[in-house]
C-alpha cells in the first residue's frame, strides 16, 4: 500500500517530463560560438535564455553552412531522427547559399528543394517547422538607407512558407528595420566591430558587417521571440514568465 502511494506520487512528480526541443538549424549568424571567437555571438546563444524549464533549445547551427552543406555533412539527419511530436525546427539559412563564389553555394532551385525537405521531414515527425528569412547584413547606401542583401533568397524562403503554410519569421525585414533605427554609425555596436588591441581574441581588430556582438545577437533573438508570440505559436506559451516586480 505505501509503495503504491509512493509510485502514484512519483508519477505525478515525474510524468510531465515531456520537454519540447527547439532545434535551431542555420549558419554562423545563429550558431553557438567557440570561446576563442568571443565576442562574436550568434543569435541562437541568447535565444537559450528566454524559455521556461519545459523547453530545451538545441542549437545545431554551424558557421559557414548552407542548406546544401548542412544536409551533405549529415547535420540534418540526426535532427530528424531525434524529432518528437511537438518539437520545433527553426530554420534560417541563406548567407552561405546565396554566394556563388562560396563552396557552400546552393542554386535557388536547390535552396527551395532543401527548405521543402526540412519542412516536410519535420512534419512527418509531427514537429513544427518555422522558416526564418536570413538576418540582415550591415550595408547602407550613401544616403544612409539600409540595403537589402538577401533579396533573392529571402523571397525563396517566403515562397516556400506561403506554399506550404509554414509559420514565417521575416527576420531579414525586421532586422533591417532595427539596423536602420540604429543608423550607419551606431549600428556598428550591433555587429562584431573591434578596434585593434581592444580584444585579445582579435588583436588586429575587426570590422564585421555580418556577425553580431552580444548586443546585436540579443536584439535579433528578441525579434525572433517577439515574432513567435505574434504568430501565436504554441511555443509562445513556454516563454519564461517572470512576475512583474514593483519598481523601487
Amino acid at each position: 500500500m505505501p509503495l503504491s502511494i509512493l509510485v502514484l506520487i512519483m508519477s505525478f512528480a515525474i510524468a510531465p517530463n515531456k520537454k519540447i526541443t527547439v532545434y535551431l538549424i542555420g549558419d554562423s549568424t545563429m550558431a553557438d560560438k567557440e570561446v576563442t571567437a568571443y565576442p562574436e555571438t550568434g543569435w541562437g546563444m541568447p535565444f537559450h535564455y528566454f524559455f521556461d524549464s519545459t523547453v530545451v533549445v538545441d542549437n545545431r547551427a554551424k558557421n559557414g553552412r548552407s542548406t546544401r552543406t548542412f544536409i551533405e555533412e549529415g547535420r540534418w539527419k540526426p535532427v530528424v531522427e531525434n524529432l518528437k511530436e511537438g518539437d520545433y525546427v527553426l530554420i534560417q539559412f541563406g548567407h552561405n547559399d546565396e554566394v556563388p563564389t562560396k563552396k557552400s553555394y546552393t542554386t535557388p532551385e536547390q535552396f527551395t528543394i532543401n527548405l521543402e525537405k526540412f519542412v516536410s521531414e519535420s512534419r512527418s515527425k509531427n514537429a513544427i517547422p518555422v522558416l526564418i528569412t536570413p538576418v540582415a547584413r550591415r550595408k547602407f547606401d550613401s544616403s544612409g538607407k539600409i540595403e537589402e542583401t538577401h533579396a533573392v533568397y529571402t523571397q525563396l524562403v517566403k515562397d516556400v512558407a506561403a506554399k506550404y503554410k509554414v509559420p514565417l519569421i521575416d527576420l531579414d525585414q525586421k532586422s533591417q528595420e532595427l539596423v536602420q533605427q540604429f543608423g550607419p554609425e551606431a549600428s556598428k555596436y550591433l555587429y562584431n566591430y573591434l578596434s585593434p588591441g581592444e580584444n585579445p581574441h582579435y588583436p588586429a581588430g575587426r570590422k564585421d558587417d555580418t556577425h553580431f556582438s552580444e548586443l546585436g545577437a540579443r536584439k535579433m533573438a528578441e525579434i525572433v521571440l517577439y515574432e513567435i508570440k505574434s504568430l501565436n505559436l504554441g511555443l509562445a506559451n513556454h516563454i519564461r514568465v517572470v512576475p512583474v516586480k514593483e519598481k523601487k
Partner: protein
Amino acid sequence: MKISNNTIYRMIKANLKKTLFVCLLALLSFALPIKKHITVWMIGDSTMCEYDSSRFPLTGWGMPFAQYFDSSVTIKNVAKGGRSTRTFIAEDRWQKVVENLKEGDYVFIQFGHNDEAKNYPDRYTTPDDYRKNLIKFITESRDKKAIPVLITPVSRRKFDANGNAIETHEVYSKIVREVAAQMDVHLVDLDAMSLKLLQQFGEKNSALLFMQLEPGENPNYPSGVHDNTHFNAYGARHVAELVLQAINDLHLEVSDRIFKKS
C-alpha cells in the same frame, strides 16, 4: 621461442615511436615552459559578479573577463551583489578566499558602489573603514604570497547637461588610488577608464552598455528596466576589455596567460 624478423622489426618500430615521442615531449617542454597553475580570485560587488541565466542579459564584468585566459588560469569570481568591503568581510566571504589562497594567486579587488551608499546603512562603509578594509585585503593576500590588484569602482552612467560623463565615485575611487600608492599595489583605474569609455559612446549610446530594456522587450524583465549601474553582456565585455588592457599595460605575470590568437 622463435622470434621472426618481422616481430623484431615491429618491436624496434614501436620503441622508435616511443623514443620519438619522449624526444618530442622534451622539445616541447623547452618550447612551451609549463606554467604553474594559478587562480585569480575576484572579490567585489554586483558590477563584477556572476549571474544566473534567468537574469540575462544582466552580466557582471567578471563573467566575460574569465573567457580570455589560457588553461593555466582558473578564475574564481566570488564577487557578490550588494556587498561592500565591510559586509564582504562580515559575512566571512573574505575569510574563505584567504584560506584558499596559494602563492602566485591574484586577488582582484573592486568595491565602492555599496560602501559609498550612505542611504543603505546595511552596506555603507565609512571612508576610514573602507581604507582599512582594502589594507586588510592587501596585507592578508601578501601574507599568503598572493598578488593583490586594486581596482577603482567602475563608473556609473551619468552625464551633465553638456553631455560630459561625470565622475560618480569621487571619494571612494580616490581612496583606492591612495591605498595603491601607499602600499605599492598594482592599480587598475577602472573608474577613469570606464568614464572615458562612456564618453566615447556618448550620453545616448552609452545606454547600450547598461541594463536598459523596454517593457516587453525581454521576458526576463517584463516591465522593462532602466539601470545606469549594472551592465548587460555587451557592456560587461567592454569593461572586461578595459581590465585586460590594464593588466597588460601593468605587465602583470597573469597577462602572459591571456589567450592570444596567433
